């Protein structure tokens, strides 16, 4: 897919500030959106998900916002900590996908400044 060959953009945030990571998705028929966190040398870890019939969902220190009008997804991390330093991937699951294939975004590297 398009995301495979691209260098990852970087977002630098001061420790303690809020982080907002943005993602544009491509398929208006997707029914499910997911955020993953990947720390260096590890596999991606599920953070939070949201269904297409919702526009906001909150977890522990994280909030996902979905704007279907402009096909935009964002992840907000409150009071960013050093442990939040990682690459964040958004992903979408096209509706009716029996094999559960998901389409990954290009990823954003979050860098925490001391």
């Amino acid at each position: 897919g398009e995301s495979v060959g691209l260098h990852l953009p970087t977002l630098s945030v001061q420790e303690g500030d809020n982080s907002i990571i943005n993602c544009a998705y491509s398929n208006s028929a997707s029914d499910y959106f997911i955020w993953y966190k990947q720390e260096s040398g590890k596999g991606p870890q599920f953070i939070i998900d949201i269904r297409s019939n919702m526009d906001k969902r909150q977890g522990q220190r994280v909030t996902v916002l979905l704007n279907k009008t402009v096909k935009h997804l964002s992840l907000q991390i409150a009071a960013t900590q050093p442990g939040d330093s990682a690459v964040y991937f958004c992903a979408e699951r096209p509706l009716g996908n029996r094999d559960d294939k998901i389409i990954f975004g290009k990823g954003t590297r979050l860098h925490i400044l001391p």
Partner: protein
Amino acid sequence: SQTIHQWPATLVQPVGSPLSLECTVEGTSNPNLYWYRQAAGRGLQLLFYSVGIGQISSEVPQNLSASRPQDRQFILSSKKLLLSDSGFYLCAWSHPGLQFFGPGTRLTVL
């Protein structure tokens, strides 16, 4: 609870040598299974997926193959490795819905 294992964790192989990476899932039955490759500083590329024993779908033409000999076992193979096969290989499962990833195997082909 479900867990997913991959081994080896790291592997250094010469060009032209064979490859076998293994992935196993515990705590679930009949999962969908996936192999991804990730180049350094890049996104995830889906290589293969399987919805059942013996059922393999290939996403991209390449030097690799996959097999699913048991319900919760997924194997990635190559007969002769190329330099371009180097990367971080990730296995994932879903049942159904979200995909959950294993710890990955770092493959370096020299």
